[in-house]
């Protein structure tokens, strides 16, 4: 019960007046980012990160994580009212959310979505509260070999669980690692892959990559779809909220299933987007009336929203305890921690108790504040979406350019942002996943350092990754996930052959 005492102390840190103020600002900015196309959790946090350098780390991370919660909430508004997913993880919410809005039940759909988001996040935070200290204590035993094995597990699970072709996932990931290696090698002091370009000395900053890939790339994609937003308006009254709460309480099984899916996908770096689709699929499969899905079934809103928020929140668990982010946005938050001189990982729980527990307490408070904010301000956000794209698009481009510039006060970064933007557009169009590239860019140096240290310990023999049961288990698990698609492919092959045989016989 040590956790409860720590948590109580955390609330004392988080619930001061200035921190509550930052929470409110963060949530509002986050919803705005979630509502606007081209700005999302990852690049929104990346753009606002330089603004927090002068704040104290606890307040800064509280504000940044609240931007993240806000973005998770905001994605649902555009999906339901405008049939435009503001965020990739709210695509599944459009399937039933928009039909509900068309039937005049927009307020119910929004209430269900916000409440589900809150429930998903709440369970994920409970999980973090009780699991994170245990995991951190366990991870204190890790050496470099174990760390590299865990990182291997992260990246292998991308290859194994991604819907995209494995070759594209690997290519995207390796591009991230290669970009991370550019510049000064911290161990030997040698320059790598700079080819005489002085701007490359400090390497590629992942914040620039995130702003370009997700921001500029998204604008280009949105442009392709045309420029018109046509949507419904909605106002949420307390009576509707109460009624909807009573209705969705009957679907507690859907909630529990979605929370489980979401937490699992968040901790393993599956991320919020696949979690929302998986959870939607499961809700339909277990439903008594699968035909109703896609036509305005409230469970079709509950399932993806709960899972997306649970995944988005639990992605912070491996980030805090192991220093390995479970999602691109968690990766950006990790980058922030490093900039403030906080090394995420098990030692954080020993050395920075105030910070960690303040953050965890702020997750409870932030989501509660978020729920209240979005329930009361929906008409305002719907009005923002009526501002034409011809006004919003250039403003977002300007925001991205400012964001890219402020990271290092370098114009080279703004130009690189454009390059990453085009790359992001091509990657999205050709179905290369972006998340592995961003995570590889963030974790590249860390992965290389632990790999080198492990190799140094074993004098260059790969057997170090099987040298004890702990590291052996993790490595074996990683390799299993890596070859998982092969197993699926082989099954399909066998099935196809059987089908052909039976077809020939019959």
């Amino acid at each position: 019960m040590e956790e409860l005492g720590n948590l109580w102390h955390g609330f004392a840190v988080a619930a001061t007046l200035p921190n509550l103020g930052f929470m409110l600002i963060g949530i509002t900015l986050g919803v705005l980012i979630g509502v606007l196309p081209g700005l999302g959790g990852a690049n929104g946090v990346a753009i606002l990160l330089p603004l927090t350098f002068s704040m104290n780390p606890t307040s800064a991370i509280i504000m940044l994580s609240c931007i993240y919660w806000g973005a998770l909430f905001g994605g649902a508004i555009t999906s339901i009212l405008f049939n435009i997913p503001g965020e990739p993880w709210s695509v599944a919410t459009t399937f039933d959310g928009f039909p509900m809005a068309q039937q005049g039940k927009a307020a119910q759909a929004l209430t269900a979505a916000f409440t589900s988001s809150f429930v998903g996040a709440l369970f994920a935070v409970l999980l973090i509260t009780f699991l994170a200290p245990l995991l951190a204590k366990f991870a204190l035993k890790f050496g470099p070999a174990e760390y590299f094995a865990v990182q291997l597990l992260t990246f292998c699970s991308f290859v194994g669980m991604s819907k995209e072709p494995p070759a594209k996932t690997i290519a995207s990931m390796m591009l991230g690692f290669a970009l991370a290696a550019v510049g000064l090698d911290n161990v030997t002091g040698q320059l790598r892959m700079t080819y005489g370009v002085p701007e490359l000395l400090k390497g590629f900053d992942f914040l620039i990559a995130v702003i370009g890939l997700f921001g500029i790339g998204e604008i280009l994609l949105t442009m392709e779809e045309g420029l018109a937003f046509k949507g419904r308006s909605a106002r949420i009254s307390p009576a509707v909220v109460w009624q909807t709460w009573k209705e969705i309480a009957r679907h507690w099984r859907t909630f529990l299933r979605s929370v489980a899916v979401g937490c699992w996908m968040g901790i393993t770096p599956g991320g919020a987007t696949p979690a929302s689709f998986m959870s939607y699929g499961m809700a339909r499969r277990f439903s008594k009336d699968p035909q109703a899905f896609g036509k305005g079934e409230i469970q079709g809103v509950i399932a993806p929203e709960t899972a997306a928020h649970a995944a988005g929140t639990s992605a912070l668990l491996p980030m805090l305890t192991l220093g390995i982010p479970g999602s691109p946005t968690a990766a950006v938050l990790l980058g922030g921690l490093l900039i403030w001189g906080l090394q995420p990982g098990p030692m954080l729980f020993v050395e920075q108790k105030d910070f960690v527990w303040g953050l965890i307490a702020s997750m409870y408070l932030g989501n509660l504040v978020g729920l209240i904010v979005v329930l009361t301000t929906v008409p305002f956000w719907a009005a923002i979406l009526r501002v034409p794209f011809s006004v919003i698009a250039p403003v977002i481009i300007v925001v991205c350019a400012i964001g890219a510039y402020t990271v290092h006060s370098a114009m080279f970064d703004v130009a690189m942002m454009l390059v990453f933007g085009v790359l992001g557009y091509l990657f999205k169009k050709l179905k290369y996943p972006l998340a592995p590239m961003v995570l590889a860019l963030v974790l590249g140096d860390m992965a290389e350092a632990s790999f080198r240290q492990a190799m140094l310990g074993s004098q260059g023999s790969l057997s170090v990754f099987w040298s004890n049961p702990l590291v052996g288990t993790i490595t074996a698990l990683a390799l299993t996930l890596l070859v998982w698609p092969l197993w699926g492919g082989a099954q399909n092959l066998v099935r196809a052959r059987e089908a052909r045989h039976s077809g020939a016989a019959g």
Partner: protein
Amino acid sequence: MSSSEGDQNVGTRWPEVGLAAFLMVLAVLVISDSIRVGTGWADDGPRSGYFPFYVGSLLLLSSGWIFLTRLMRWSRDRAVFAERSQLALVLAVLVPMCVYVGLIYPLGIYLPSALLIAYFMKRYGGYRWPAFMSVSVAVPLVFFAVFERWFLVPLPKGPIERLLGL
């Protein structure tokens, strides 16, 4: 991307092969530089090229695989990348964006931002000058207040800001 089947659509095969080839070139750059700095062992452990060499090799393998499989399916590949009209829209944003970034170098960020917003609102929104003038002047002013005054983060400035003594 000159070859396209239908008149309306651009196929995915040129972009696919082009991107894979681009990644292969990057991979070769990574590998060759890793060999330059050394991929083996020195007295104090693995040399600088040790890890990037494997990264580059895997990148070459995976992008080479994509490249080859696309070439093998070349004539059967009928997937659509985008319609021509859509690509025209994308270029219509991309080109002003590049001009914008190019203008920031000599002019600072504020004036090009105003120009970009005015251009978009006039060209795509069909706004008249009172509307686009007011928005395109107001937005950079707000950014100036927020960044330079409130958060004390300096942004790039040009001759006009210098004239105004900012």
